[in-house]
């Protein structure tokens, strides 16, 4: 197990280094952030002075080494725009994205798995066909468009929910959360549903495919022959046996939801990390871009690690393999 962990950490380090080089090269290719930020009233001397102050006159590899050595000291740098430590900036946005992503995953799981089970259990029924049609919509219609439709329908026309932003928050466990109040929920429900839609479609199809396959297997027939009730057969044997791909996808989707809720956060003006990264890209705020992507890599590595550990719990054969 220890060897497995060390291997994972090494992998993560390699990915982090590769990622930081790619981002540095990319931003450097676009050009000097000062040219995007500079005020038209300034003259050449001022421009030079600013470029020097931000160390942008150094060759790329020197800029990169300065950044990397700072990072090794746990310092991801300061935002060009806010002059605040990047980590604090990202961390201050994290709770908003976390609660949005978790709510979306909750919606996707609580609806997706039962619906998928039903569609796989009774594949010929009309309801199953309706569920499948819906799932296709879920991941083929672009999410910004669905988001705009949701806003038009439920915020502008019906007026049930606010059209965007994040409502009142309360301070819980060192984080500002909005899911603690009813009003907060009214703000989160539309963006969370919008974000959940793709995952919902995915989970439905995944669960259905698994269920359809497992339903015809021997152990389901034996379980039925044993006289187990249908609900036990489906809820225990079927669900457990199709859970490996579901957990994998759940893990990856949780990661990508946390990291790339960009579209939904932009459409609903949700003040999370996705919006921060978009805002930073539009002004070439390099420290924020690099730090954010490095954190995303770290997040994915961690999630994959957890997923692998959960596999072991779900399927003892994997545990045996890992140990040997």
């Amino acid at each position, binding site marked *: 197990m220890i060897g497995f962990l060390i291997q994972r950490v090494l992998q993560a380090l390699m990915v982090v280094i590769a990622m930081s080089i790619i981002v540095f090269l990319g931003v450097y290719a*676009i*050009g*000097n*952030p*000062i*040219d*995007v*930020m*500079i*005020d*038209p*009233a*300034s*003259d*050449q*001397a*001022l*421009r030079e*002075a*600013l470029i020097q102050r*931000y160390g942008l006159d150094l060759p790329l590899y020197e800029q990169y080494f300065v950044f990397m050595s700072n990072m090794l000291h746990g310092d991801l740098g300061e935002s*060009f*725009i*806010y*002059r*605040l430590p990047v980590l604090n*900036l990202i961390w*201050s946005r994290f709770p908003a994205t976390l609660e949005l992503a978790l709510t979306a995953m909750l919606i996707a799981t609580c609806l997706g798995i039962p619906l998928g089970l039903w569609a796989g259990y009774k594949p010929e029924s009309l309801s199953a066909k309706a569920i499948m049609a819906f799932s296709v919509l879920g991941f083929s219609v672009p999410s910004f468009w669905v988001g*705009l439709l949701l*806003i*038009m329908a439920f*915020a*502008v026309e019906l*007026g049930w929910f*606010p*059209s*965007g*932003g*994040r409502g009142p928050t309360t301070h819980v466990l060192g984080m500002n959360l909005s899911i603690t109040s009813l009003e907060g929920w009214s703000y989160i429900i539309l963006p969370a549903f919008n974000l959940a839609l793709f995952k919902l479609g995915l989970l439905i199809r995944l669960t259905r495919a698994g269920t359809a396959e497992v339903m015809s297997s021997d152990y389901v027939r034996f379980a039925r022959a044993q006289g187990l009730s249908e609900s036990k057969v489906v809820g225990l044997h079927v669900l457990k046996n199709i859970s490996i791909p579901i957990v994998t996808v759940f893990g990856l989707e949780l990661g990508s939801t946390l990291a790339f809720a960009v579209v939904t956060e*932009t*459409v*609903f*003006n949700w*003040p999370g990390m996705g*919006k*921060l990264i978009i*805002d930073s*890209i*539009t*002004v*070439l705020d390099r420290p924020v871009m690099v730090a954010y992507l490095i954190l995303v890599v770290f997040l994915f590595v961690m999630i994959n690690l957890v997923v692998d550990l959960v596999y072991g719990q779900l399927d003892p054969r994997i545990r045996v393999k890992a140990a040997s």
Partner: protein
Amino acid sequence: MKQNFKLGGSLVAALVLGTVLCGSVSAQTLTMGLRAGPDSIDPHWSTLGSQAEALRHIFDTLVMSDENLGLKPGLATSWKPIDDTTWEFKIREGVKFHDGSELTAEDVKFSIDRIPVVTGPMSMTIYTKQVAEAKVADKYTLHVKTKAPAPTLPNDFIRLFVVSKNVGMEARNEQFNSGKAAIGTGPYKFVSWEPKGDLVLERFDGYWGEKQPWQKVVRKEIPSDPARMAALKSGQVDLVNYVPATDYAAMQKDKSVDTFVADSVYFLNLTPNVKETLPRKVKVDGKEIDANPLRDPKVREAMDLAIDRKTLVRVVLEGLGRPANQLMPASFFGGNKNLPERPYDLAKAKQLLADAGYPKGFEIDFHCTNNRLPGDGAVCEALSQMWARAGLKVNANALNGTVFFPAQQKGEFSLWMSGWGTLTGEASYTYGSLVHTADPQLGLGAFNKQGYSNPEVDKLLEEGARTMDDPKRRALFEKVTEVSMNDRALIPTVQIQTVWAAKKGMLAIPPRVDQETLAYEIKPKS
């Protein structure tokens, strides 16, 4: 029957009372949905327009500007030059800071001295670069010594936000963002803010100016256009700024909103690169040529004549603009009221191209932004089609500003279009940066990337920069405008208009040419 009347009467009364109550409740809080916000609560951090717009509520400036960018008294009641390099500012008496202390010349001096110490990526020192020293003459008089004659100093001080000297030289972003150091003399007090989030303000009852109708002001930052429009339609905000042209067309038919339109200071200008060789060469008959056709004034004139500005405004901008014949409104200091409107004459354009030796036209790359100003990308495409009618093949590339500006600065474009706003309201800001020969020693021509150089223009601009006499300076700048525009150093196309929208019948929004949305200028409609 009588009973019914009574019932009806009380119902009406209840309705009236209800409306009045609701009306007065909503009149206490003004919630604005705006495209951009501040990057910090420190007013000396950045020169960004949205930064100034937000912080004006908390801090006052030494000199203020009216809706047409004319100067008016702010914390200074009057100013005059007492010799060639000294300006005297009389400070308003009896002004209170939010912490109860009184404003004196010391605070203004402190603010001027503080700017170079704390300024961020968009350096505020451009507003103090002419200052050699600020001296307190007495409690309410400040003498500002300048390095050279500085006729535009009061224009620079439109952005000189005055902070209390009590905050101390050590206070930085954190102290301001938390509100501890956010002590100004403005009409509103700071309550809370988070980056890219809401800025919440509360009325300051000790304000020296007009009494404010809003008890509370919430400034919500909503950069996405559809999200901002939805916030207005769903009643989350009372007003929004930067209504896109397409939404404007629909809103005019909508009975639940009022729209407000104003000219802005922003112009879309074409810039022909007139250097010896072009970074992206022109093609004639599919073959690259070494010569730069744009150096020929006839070619520039032909391209100008082929632009149908009226159609640009009417069709491409949905009516939200004006044809332009110079780089800023003619009413600004140094604008030229005698320049004629630019004609649209396709036949003459073709003739001029033939005269210049390009009877079959040429092919050229054309770059512009697509996210800086409303309609910039659309105008860009329309232009390339208009030029096609004159026989030119123009490859339009609309780029995100993040990509456009660094490339422009590196001199990678042959022909480009970008927006420019004369935010100080006078000509030296624009013409000094764009048409003066690029000269780092003088600090002029910083944005002249097209290589335009005309000794006459340079001489006039330099003379204007040291002429303290207003009428004389105005005449010099008017001449600069005339000469450079006739040279087609840049080719102005359209002046952009800005649109605000608010809930029907609720607000009176006085439109400002600098596009700022200021709660203290917005009144409830009675």
